[in-house]
Protein backbone atom coordinates (compact mmCIF):
# COMPACT_ATOMS: atom_id res chain seq x y z
CA UNK A 1 0.00 0.00 0.00
CA UNK A 2 1.39 3.40 -1.01
CA UNK A 3 0.22 6.86 -0.08
CA UNK A 4 1.29 10.42 -0.83
CA UNK A 5 2.82 12.06 2.25
CA UNK A 6 4.19 15.51 2.98
CA UNK A 7 7.38 15.99 5.00
CA UNK A 8 7.67 19.60 6.22
CA UNK A 9 11.24 19.84 7.41
CA UNK A 10 12.70 22.65 9.51
CA UNK A 11 16.02 23.35 7.84
CA UNK A 12 18.99 25.47 8.88
CA UNK A 13 21.80 26.43 6.55
CA UNK A 14 24.10 27.88 9.21
CA UNK A 15 22.53 31.34 9.04
CA UNK A 16 18.83 31.06 8.30
CA UNK A 17 16.15 28.67 9.48
CA UNK A 18 13.30 27.89 7.08
CA UNK A 19 10.67 25.25 6.32
CA UNK A 20 10.93 23.11 3.21
CA UNK A 21 8.23 20.77 1.92
CA UNK A 22 8.94 17.38 0.38
CA UNK A 23 6.16 15.28 -1.11
CA UNK A 24 6.64 11.63 -2.01
CA UNK A 25 4.90 8.29 -2.05
CA UNK A 26 5.42 6.36 1.18
CA UNK A 27 4.72 2.65 1.50
CA UNK A 28 3.18 0.88 4.46
CA UNK A 29 5.72 0.18 7.21
CA UNK A 30 8.09 2.93 6.04
CA UNK A 31 9.73 4.76 8.94
CA UNK A 32 10.39 8.48 9.24
CA UNK A 33 14.10 7.71 8.92
CA UNK A 34 13.51 5.83 5.67
CA UNK A 35 11.53 8.85 4.48
CA UNK A 36 14.46 11.14 5.32
CA UNK A 37 16.87 8.80 3.47
CA UNK A 38 14.50 8.77 0.49
CA UNK A 39 14.53 12.58 0.39
CA UNK A 40 18.32 12.70 0.68
CA UNK A 41 18.87 10.06 -1.99
CA UNK A 42 16.18 11.06 -4.49
CA UNK A 43 15.04 14.65 -3.93
CA UNK A 44 17.56 16.83 -2.09
CA UNK A 45 21.03 15.51 -1.26
CA UNK A 46 21.81 18.52 0.92
CA UNK A 47 19.43 17.44 3.72
CA UNK A 48 21.37 16.71 6.91
CA UNK A 49 20.33 14.40 9.72
CA UNK A 50 21.96 11.94 12.11
CA UNK A 51 21.32 8.21 11.97
CA UNK A 52 23.24 5.04 12.53
CA UNK A 53 21.79 1.73 13.72
CA UNK A 54 18.24 2.04 12.27
CA UNK A 55 16.95 -0.16 15.09
CA UNK A 56 16.37 2.10 18.11
CA UNK A 57 19.63 1.31 19.84
CA UNK A 58 22.08 4.10 19.07
CA UNK A 59 19.79 7.08 19.79
CA UNK A 60 21.25 9.16 16.93
CA UNK A 61 18.09 9.83 14.95
CA UNK A 62 15.92 11.56 17.59
CA UNK A 63 13.98 14.42 15.98
CA UNK A 64 10.77 16.26 16.70
CA UNK A 65 7.87 14.85 14.69
CA UNK A 66 4.72 16.97 14.91
CA UNK A 67 6.04 18.62 18.06
CA UNK A 68 7.05 15.45 19.91
CA UNK A 69 10.58 14.00 20.11
CA UNK A 70 10.75 10.52 18.61
CA UNK A 71 13.32 8.15 17.21
CA UNK A 72 12.93 8.52 13.44
CA UNK A 73 13.93 4.87 12.93
CA UNK A 74 11.16 3.57 15.21
CA UNK A 75 8.36 5.85 14.03
CA UNK A 76 6.26 4.67 11.12
CA UNK A 77 5.03 7.42 8.79
CA UNK A 78 1.46 6.11 8.58
CA UNK A 79 1.20 6.04 12.39
CA UNK A 80 1.64 9.82 12.38
CA UNK A 81 -0.48 10.78 9.35
CA UNK A 82 -0.14 12.27 5.89
CA UNK A 83 1.65 15.45 6.98
CA UNK A 84 4.72 15.29 9.18
CA UNK A 85 6.43 18.38 10.55
CA UNK A 86 9.98 17.38 11.34
CA UNK A 87 12.22 19.61 13.43
CA UNK A 88 15.53 19.31 15.26
CA UNK A 89 15.41 18.67 19.04
CA UNK A 90 14.91 21.67 21.34
CA UNK A 91 17.29 22.95 24.02
CA UNK A 92 20.35 22.24 21.89
CA UNK A 93 21.76 24.56 19.25
CA UNK A 94 21.18 23.50 15.66
CA UNK A 95 24.29 22.86 13.58
CA UNK A 96 22.54 22.09 10.31
CA UNK A 97 19.00 21.02 9.40
CA UNK A 98 18.09 18.23 11.87
CA UNK A 99 21.56 17.92 13.38
CA UNK A 100 21.95 19.47 16.83
CA UNK A 101 25.05 20.09 18.91
CA UNK A 102 24.97 17.40 21.62
CA UNK A 103 28.38 18.22 23.04
CA UNK A 104 26.98 19.94 26.17
CA UNK A 105 24.52 17.08 26.66
CA UNK A 106 27.33 14.52 26.72
CA UNK A 107 29.58 16.73 28.90
CA UNK A 108 26.79 16.78 31.50
CA UNK A 109 26.47 13.03 31.26
CA UNK A 110 30.21 12.70 31.78
CA UNK A 111 30.09 15.10 34.76
CA UNK A 112 28.01 12.73 36.93
CA UNK A 113 30.65 9.96 36.67
CA UNK A 114 28.45 7.37 34.94
CA UNK A 115 30.58 4.35 35.76
CA UNK A 116 31.15 2.06 38.73
CA UNK A 117 33.37 3.66 41.34
CA UNK A 118 35.08 1.17 43.59
CA UNK A 119 38.07 1.32 45.88
CA UNK A 120 40.32 -1.52 46.90
CA UNK A 121 39.64 -3.90 44.03
CA UNK A 122 42.56 -6.19 43.42
CA UNK A 123 42.86 -6.46 39.66
CA UNK A 124 45.62 -9.06 40.04
CA UNK A 125 43.10 -11.36 41.71
CA UNK A 126 39.72 -10.29 40.23
CA UNK A 127 36.52 -11.44 41.94
CA UNK A 128 33.06 -11.65 40.44
CA UNK A 129 30.70 -9.07 41.95
CA UNK A 130 27.54 -10.94 42.82
CA UNK A 131 24.09 -9.35 42.79
CA UNK A 132 20.67 -10.65 43.77
CA UNK A 133 17.81 -10.22 41.26
CA UNK A 134 16.38 -7.54 43.60
CA UNK A 135 19.64 -5.59 43.52
CA UNK A 136 19.68 -5.85 39.72
CA UNK A 137 16.10 -4.61 39.35
CA UNK A 138 16.88 -1.56 41.50
CA UNK A 139 18.78 0.01 38.60
CA UNK A 140 18.27 -2.19 35.51
CA UNK A 141 15.54 -0.13 33.79
CA UNK A 142 17.61 3.03 34.11
CA UNK A 143 20.59 1.36 32.46
CA UNK A 144 18.66 1.11 29.18
CA UNK A 145 19.14 4.81 28.32
CA UNK A 146 20.43 5.28 24.75
CA UNK A 147 21.32 8.99 25.25
CA UNK A 148 19.10 10.17 22.39
CA UNK A 149 18.45 13.53 24.09
CA UNK A 150 14.64 13.34 23.76
CA UNK A 151 14.13 13.88 27.53
CA UNK A 152 16.56 16.79 27.59
CA UNK A 153 14.81 18.49 24.66
CA UNK A 154 11.39 18.63 26.38
CA UNK A 155 12.67 19.59 29.84
CA UNK A 156 11.47 23.11 30.77
CA UNK A 157 14.31 23.45 33.30
CA UNK A 158 16.84 22.73 30.55
CA UNK A 159 15.04 25.36 28.44
CA UNK A 160 15.92 28.13 30.88
CA UNK A 161 19.21 27.02 32.47
CA UNK A 162 22.12 25.95 30.32
CA UNK A 163 24.00 24.64 33.40
CA UNK A 164 21.14 22.34 34.47
CA UNK A 165 22.35 18.74 34.24
CA UNK A 166 19.11 17.52 32.71
CA UNK A 167 17.11 14.31 33.11
CA UNK A 168 19.43 11.99 31.14
CA UNK A 169 22.53 12.80 33.18
CA UNK A 170 20.66 12.48 36.47
CA UNK A 171 19.14 9.18 35.38
CA UNK A 172 22.67 7.95 34.73
CA UNK A 173 23.70 9.23 38.16
CA UNK A 174 20.80 7.37 39.80
CA UNK A 175 21.52 4.21 37.81
CA UNK A 176 24.97 3.99 39.42
CA UNK A 177 23.92 5.25 42.87
CA UNK A 178 21.32 2.47 42.99
CA UNK A 179 23.85 -0.18 41.96
CA UNK A 180 24.89 -2.35 44.94
CA UNK A 181 28.40 -2.73 43.46
CA UNK A 182 29.04 1.02 43.37
CA UNK A 183 30.89 2.93 46.10
CA UNK A 184 30.69 6.43 44.62
CA UNK A 185 27.25 7.44 45.85
CA UNK A 186 28.47 10.31 48.07
CA UNK A 187 30.67 11.68 45.32
CA UNK A 188 27.82 11.62 42.80
CA UNK A 189 25.26 13.03 45.24
CA UNK A 190 27.57 15.97 45.85
CA UNK A 191 27.59 16.61 42.10
CA UNK A 192 23.81 16.51 41.62
CA UNK A 193 22.69 18.18 44.87
CA UNK A 194 23.34 21.76 43.76
CA UNK A 195 20.95 24.21 42.11
CA UNK A 196 22.06 22.93 38.70
CA UNK A 197 21.12 19.41 39.77
CA UNK A 198 18.07 17.66 41.16
CA UNK A 199 16.58 20.72 42.88
CA UNK A 200 16.19 22.53 39.56
CA UNK A 201 13.67 19.89 38.44
CA UNK A 202 10.08 21.06 39.03
CA UNK A 203 8.46 17.82 37.96
CA UNK A 204 7.11 18.43 34.53
CA UNK A 205 7.59 14.68 33.88
CA UNK A 206 7.44 15.17 30.13
CA UNK A 207 10.85 13.47 29.99
CA UNK A 208 9.18 10.22 31.03
CA UNK A 209 6.45 10.67 28.43
CA UNK A 210 8.81 11.03 25.47
CA UNK A 211 11.51 8.51 26.44
CA UNK A 212 11.61 5.97 23.56
CA UNK A 213 12.85 3.31 25.99
CA UNK A 214 10.20 4.02 28.67
CA UNK A 215 12.91 4.56 31.24
CA UNK A 216 11.05 7.13 33.34
CA UNK A 217 13.84 9.71 33.85
CA UNK A 218 11.48 11.81 36.01
CA UNK A 219 11.24 8.92 38.46
CA UNK A 220 15.03 8.66 38.63
CA UNK A 221 15.32 12.40 39.30
CA UNK A 222 12.75 12.25 42.13
CA UNK A 223 14.59 9.27 43.65
CA UNK A 224 17.82 11.26 43.43
CA UNK A 225 16.02 14.15 45.16
CA UNK A 226 15.12 11.89 48.07
CA UNK A 227 18.72 10.63 48.28
CA UNK A 228 19.97 14.21 48.13
CA UNK A 229 17.52 15.36 50.85
CA UNK A 230 18.62 12.53 53.17
CA UNK A 231 22.27 13.41 52.52
CA UNK A 232 21.62 17.11 53.32
CA UNK A 233 19.72 16.27 56.55
CA UNK A 234 22.49 13.87 57.63
CA UNK A 235 25.14 16.53 56.95
CA UNK A 236 23.38 18.90 59.39
CA UNK A 237 23.80 16.43 62.27
CA UNK A 238 27.40 15.50 61.47
Amino acid sequence: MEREVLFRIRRFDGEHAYWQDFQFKARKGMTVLEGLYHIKESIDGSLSFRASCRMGVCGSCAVKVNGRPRLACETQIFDIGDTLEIEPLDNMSVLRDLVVDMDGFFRKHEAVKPYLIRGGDNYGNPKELMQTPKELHAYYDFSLCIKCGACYSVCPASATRSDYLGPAAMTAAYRFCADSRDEGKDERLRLVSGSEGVWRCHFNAECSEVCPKNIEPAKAVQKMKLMSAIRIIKSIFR
Partner: protein
Amino acid sequence: MEGISGWFSLRGKSVNSIAYSFHRLTGLVLLLYLIIHLSFLTSLRIGEEAYTAFISTTVRPETLPLDSLLFLATFYHAFNGLRVVLNEFGLVYELRKALAYIMALLALAFWVYSTYVMYVFVMG
Protein backbone atom coordinates in the same frame (compact mmCIF):
# COMPACT_ATOMS: atom_id res chain seq x y z
CA MET B 1 17.84 26.74 24.69
CA GLU B 2 14.21 27.59 24.23
CA GLY B 3 14.04 30.04 27.14
CA ILE B 4 10.83 30.83 29.04
CA SER B 5 8.78 29.87 25.97
CA GLY B 6 9.83 26.31 26.88
CA TRP B 7 7.49 26.55 29.90
CA PHE B 8 4.51 27.20 27.70
CA SER B 9 5.10 25.32 24.44
CA LEU B 10 2.43 22.61 24.55
CA ARG B 11 2.37 21.14 21.06
CA GLY B 12 2.79 17.38 21.22
CA LYS B 13 3.02 17.47 25.02
CA SER B 14 1.10 15.46 27.63
CA VAL B 15 -1.28 16.54 30.40
CA ASN B 16 1.74 16.86 32.73
CA SER B 17 3.13 19.70 30.63
CA ILE B 18 -0.28 21.39 30.49
CA ALA B 19 -0.46 21.16 34.30
CA TYR B 20 3.09 22.52 34.55
CA SER B 21 2.28 25.49 32.27
CA PHE B 22 -0.91 26.30 34.19
CA HIS B 23 1.02 26.04 37.45
CA ARG B 24 3.56 28.59 36.20
CA LEU B 25 0.84 30.84 34.81
CA THR B 26 -1.27 30.77 37.99
CA GLY B 27 1.91 31.35 40.01
CA LEU B 28 2.54 34.55 38.03
CA VAL B 29 -1.10 35.63 38.55
CA LEU B 30 -0.76 35.06 42.32
CA LEU B 31 2.52 37.00 42.38
CA LEU B 32 0.81 39.91 40.60
CA TYR B 33 -2.09 39.72 43.07
CA LEU B 34 0.34 39.70 46.01
CA ILE B 35 2.02 42.88 44.72
CA ILE B 36 -1.38 44.61 44.29
CA HIS B 37 -2.55 43.33 47.69
CA LEU B 38 0.54 44.64 49.46
CA SER B 39 0.23 47.97 47.61
CA PHE B 40 -3.34 48.32 48.90
CA LEU B 41 -2.23 47.50 52.43
CA THR B 42 0.58 50.05 52.15
CA SER B 43 -2.07 52.73 51.54
CA LEU B 44 -2.83 52.43 55.29
CA ARG B 45 0.30 54.52 55.81
CA ILE B 46 -1.45 57.37 53.99
CA GLY B 47 -4.54 57.03 56.11
CA GLU B 48 -7.68 55.01 56.73
CA GLU B 49 -9.64 57.00 54.13
CA ALA B 50 -7.16 56.17 51.37
CA TYR B 51 -7.29 52.48 52.32
CA THR B 52 -11.11 52.46 52.37
CA ALA B 53 -11.22 54.22 49.00
CA PHE B 54 -8.86 51.62 47.48
CA ILE B 55 -10.76 48.68 48.94
CA SER B 56 -14.15 50.02 47.83
CA THR B 57 -12.94 49.85 44.22
CA THR B 58 -12.53 46.08 44.51
CA VAL B 59 -15.53 44.92 46.57
CA ARG B 60 -18.34 45.48 44.08
CA PRO B 61 -20.28 43.45 41.49
CA GLU B 62 -18.14 44.64 38.54
CA THR B 63 -14.97 43.16 40.01
CA LEU B 64 -16.60 39.84 40.97
CA PRO B 65 -15.38 38.08 37.77
CA LEU B 66 -11.80 39.13 38.58
CA ASP B 67 -12.12 37.85 42.15
CA SER B 68 -13.58 34.64 40.81
CA LEU B 69 -10.64 34.18 38.40
CA LEU B 70 -8.23 34.88 41.24
CA PHE B 71 -9.85 32.07 43.25
CA LEU B 72 -9.58 29.76 40.24
CA ALA B 73 -5.85 30.53 39.99
CA THR B 74 -5.42 30.03 43.74
CA PHE B 75 -7.24 26.71 43.90
CA TYR B 76 -5.51 25.35 40.81
CA HIS B 77 -2.09 26.38 42.09
CA ALA B 78 -2.79 24.90 45.53
CA PHE B 79 -4.17 21.54 44.39
CA ASN B 80 -1.68 21.07 41.57
CA GLY B 81 1.09 22.08 43.98
CA LEU B 82 -0.05 19.29 46.29
CA ARG B 83 0.25 16.85 43.39
CA VAL B 84 3.76 18.08 42.62
CA VAL B 85 4.79 17.71 46.28
CA LEU B 86 3.46 14.14 46.37
CA ASN B 87 5.15 13.21 43.12
CA GLU B 88 8.42 14.86 44.10
CA PHE B 89 8.51 12.69 47.22
CA GLY B 90 8.19 9.74 44.85
CA LEU B 91 4.62 9.01 46.00
CA VAL B 92 1.87 7.92 43.58
CA TYR B 93 4.33 8.61 40.78
CA GLU B 94 2.73 6.06 38.44
CA LEU B 95 -0.64 7.79 38.87
CA ARG B 96 0.70 11.22 37.95
CA LYS B 97 -1.62 11.69 34.96
CA ALA B 98 -4.76 10.62 36.83
CA LEU B 99 -3.73 12.84 39.73
CA ALA B 100 -3.35 15.84 37.40
CA TYR B 101 -6.96 15.38 36.27
CA ILE B 102 -8.25 14.77 39.82
CA MET B 103 -6.54 17.90 41.16
CA ALA B 104 -7.91 20.00 38.27
CA LEU B 105 -11.42 18.71 39.02
CA LEU B 106 -11.01 19.46 42.74
CA ALA B 107 -9.84 22.99 41.88
CA LEU B 108 -12.88 23.46 39.62
CA ALA B 109 -15.28 22.23 42.33
CA PHE B 110 -13.80 24.55 44.97
CA TRP B 111 -13.81 27.44 42.46
CA VAL B 112 -17.50 27.01 41.62
CA TYR B 113 -18.44 26.89 45.32
CA SER B 114 -16.28 29.90 46.25
CA THR B 115 -17.69 31.92 43.34
CA TYR B 116 -21.21 31.13 44.54
CA VAL B 117 -20.34 32.25 48.10
CA MET B 118 -18.76 35.48 46.79
CA TYR B 119 -21.75 36.13 44.53
CA VAL B 120 -24.16 35.80 47.46
CA PHE B 121 -21.92 38.05 49.61
CA VAL B 122 -21.49 40.84 47.02
CA MET B 123 -25.03 40.79 45.64
CA GLY B 124 -26.53 40.55 49.11
